[in-house]
């Protein structure tokens, strides 16, 4: 993980959430994480903007059952997210199988609630009840099919022993102009 201004500048032209970076600046501390680099992608190193928040314990790894999402609030009480053990390795996944991830389940298109729309067979969230968008939880919440033009916001996780901590949000929760 890196945290400096140069990377943020680079990110303006080349990252998951481009124009929104400006908004992060005014709120919580920001950082960029280097997403796994892919040779031949034609993009230079790709970074995602992460809004850093106070580290918060959100659950225990041993309590998670595969494909049974649980909910938690982060970074504030009114933001409800899902934590799920996918049983398949995922981008930014934690745990032995790199398969534990957390997302804000509000569709980035127009705010449809996807909390109950997890498909265990495909590791996909959706279809959105509003306009049928679907998102791949193994791949940073990228759009599978539909109208959304941003990935689902992913909650950055850390593991300490059996405790799972949320440490930041990659992307912007729907309807907000900053992550605060």
């Amino acid at each position, binding site marked *: 993980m890196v945290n400096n201004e140069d990377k943020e500048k680079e990110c303006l032209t080349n990252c998951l959430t481009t124009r929104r970076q400006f908004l992060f600046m005014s709120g919580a501390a920001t950082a960029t994480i280097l997403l796994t680099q*892919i040779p031949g992608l034609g993009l230079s190193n790709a970074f995602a903007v992460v809004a850093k928040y106070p580290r918060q314990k959100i659950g225990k790894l041993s309590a998670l059952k595969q494909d049974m999402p649980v909910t938690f609030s982060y970074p504030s009480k009114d933001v409800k997210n899902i934590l799920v053990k996918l049983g398949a390795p995922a981008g930014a996944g934690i745990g032995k199988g790199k398969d534990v991830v957390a997302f804000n389940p509000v569709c980035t298109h127009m705010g449809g609630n996807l909390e109950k729309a997890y498909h265990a067979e495909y590791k996909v969230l959706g279809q959105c009840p509003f306009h*049928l968008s*679907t998102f791949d939880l*193994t791949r940073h919440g990228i*759009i*599978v099919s539909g109208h959304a*033009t941003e990935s689902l916001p992913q909650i950055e996780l850390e593991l300490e022993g059996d405790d799972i901590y949320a440490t930041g949000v990659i992307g912007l929760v729907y309807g907000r102009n900053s992550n605060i």
Partner: protein
Amino acid sequence: MIRVFDTLMPVSWDLALDVAAEISKYVIKNHSENAWACKTYSYQFIENTYAITRFALKDINTPAFAWHDSPAVGEESAGIAFAGFQTFGPGYWDRANADVLFISGTDPYETKTILWNEWIMPAIKKRGMKVIMVLPRKTAGAAFAEANGGLFLDVYPGTDTVLHMAIARILVENNWVDMEFIKNWTSNFFSELWETESGFGRGTRNTHWQWITTWGKLEAKGFEDFKKWLLGEKESDINTASQITGVSVEKIRKAAEMLANGDGKKKVSFGYEKGLYWSNNYLGTASLGSLALLTGCGNRPGRVLGRFGGHQRGGLGGGNYPGNKSPDKFGGRRRLTMDMDRWVESGHVRFAWVVGNTWMSAMAGSQSQMDTFNKLTRHNPNQVMSLVKEEIIETLKKRVDSGGMVVVNQDIYLRDPIGAKYADIVLPAATWGEENFTRANGERRLRLYSKFYDAPGEAKPDWWIVAQWAKKMGFEGYDWKDSNDVFTEGARFSRGRQDNNYDALVWMAKKKGVKAYELLRKFGTTGIQCPVIVVDEDYKYDRPGWEYTMPKAMRDSQDIRADGYKIIGVARLQDSEWKLPDAHFGARYIDPKNLTAFNTQSGKANWLKSPWDIFSDFFDFIKPKEDELWVTNGRINEIWQSGFDDVERRPYITQRFPENFIEIHPDDAKARGIESGDMVLAYSERIPVWKDSNMGTNALDTKYSNLVKQGHIKMTKASVTAVAMVTPAVKKGVSFMYFLHPTQPANSLAPRVPDPLTNQYRYKLGVGKVKKIGESPYKNEFRAMTFARRDIV
């Protein structure tokens, strides 16, 4: 910019257009106007298409003219038009007020977002409307429709005709047809009434099918004749049909049950797009029209057949196509509009003006066509090596005299390869937001696109570029001061159009003493549904959907009223239940028949046959052999703006689709050792290219097998890479790619043999072998792409 030493050098507008005008004049004088070609978009605003067509068709009068999406001008869905349907007649209201909606060759969730989100999906959810969708792969919309009481028919590419015939036969055999409608609204040769045979005393002579064939194979002499023909065709047999189409007998029967309308009470609508008419153009559309008529569909609210449409519509003809100059001809019949790709292929084009499209990248067999462009432009020895005007002109004259071609590309971006590699002159165009323009949507809703910032650099609107160029060539009447001038001048040319007839709007603006744009601006983003017509001031238009024809504030305002008249919009065309108000159409011309009747001599719909055997020799040749797969293609919602630079410019789209993908059924993938994320090659050594223009003399000369016999077809090769996506959403034996990826164009594999009846391509009938060539970087990484199936509900 002018290409000098193979580098595009910025030059003044004057220099660029002086050269374009000089070479144009030279080519027309020495090689004829047939050697001066125009390939242009058909939709990028009324003002521009008017200016472009006025210049190319009226003033230069060349037959070498084609739109962005097809090799020749003409009906895009001829069978449906010939039957008498107005292809853009329906309103969106009708799409949400059917009981059953049959959708062919498109998923409006992917390609017509507003129509789906605002009309079709709410009707499925709230009214329980049933949707039947016909596609070779299940998309998100198809999956949603199926999960909500609808039906998904998984058809092999190009076989819709047979599916339609089989369903039609079940309807006929069970008397599940709307006889009341058929008696009243379809043509009958044997009737003593004023019908097909007797219209204006000209019989069927002036109907389109008579223009394209004398075989007597396409027209039915009324319902009884159609029925007799249908029952005699082996393809209408449900088992044969199931075998050809790949759709199960149960599903075909279920579709027929859903469409059954013996008591005429069910409201059945039909919508279609390119999956239908770009795979088997004439037969697919003719058979869909006849199927629709059986269900009582065609001329009542909620019972309509029409295109869903794609992009907004901004076409306006400023000149007539000189059909008599075209080198193409139907077998034994009239001339056909020119197939421009063949015209270039055979070396007849010396000057090509390409406006707002990529030409070869978007056409069928695109790699073979690039070869031709290379030969005629970059590989010609006469290349510009100077910025002196006289020397540029001298060099390019030598180019055209040596059999080469000069290319002028006019676009809002520099596109590769047409601009970046082939163009000698690149003209930068201004687009929406940078100039006032007008367009209409898929239900003829005309709106003003207001200017809100300046165009970058010296980019100019297309009509301005045309005007300067035309004036330099000595043509008159190009003294437009602004877009409104062009819009106003074009009004009278819009009268014959179904999708954007705005003549009466301009008439009203003049009465009110305001610019036409000022009046249109008052209609806001709601706009007004064309055709705009003039009625008595106190006339109340109350046909279903009337409330959407214009904003409420405008309905009540004085802005649309003058001299005891007012203007209104129209919810749907050919609305048979609408009792037209008396007179006053004379105030501004409009053909009242368009408003209430079918577009035929008699005002009744025509029955068309769709004999499979006029297509089957081509189909038998093209269909996959041995380990080949269909490599069909289409649009997806995330990269809707094909051919623009979404894929390159928008970071999120680049991340989601860094490369083209190919959907493969798990069984086909397994047989080839392919997994999701593998890089594969789709390739073929048997892509047929119809290489030269020719005149059919005998009736069957342009049938595929006869073209081969007569030496008009050559075989070409092409290959395209893509990242594999293994999914049961695509039918076994079929693979699917996004159609216009800039570096991996799926239509390289499409046959360059248009439907000989209509000169429309069969883009969807790509075929090839598919093999693994390695793993893509996305296979085991998480940042870009996804291989999750697209049909999850």
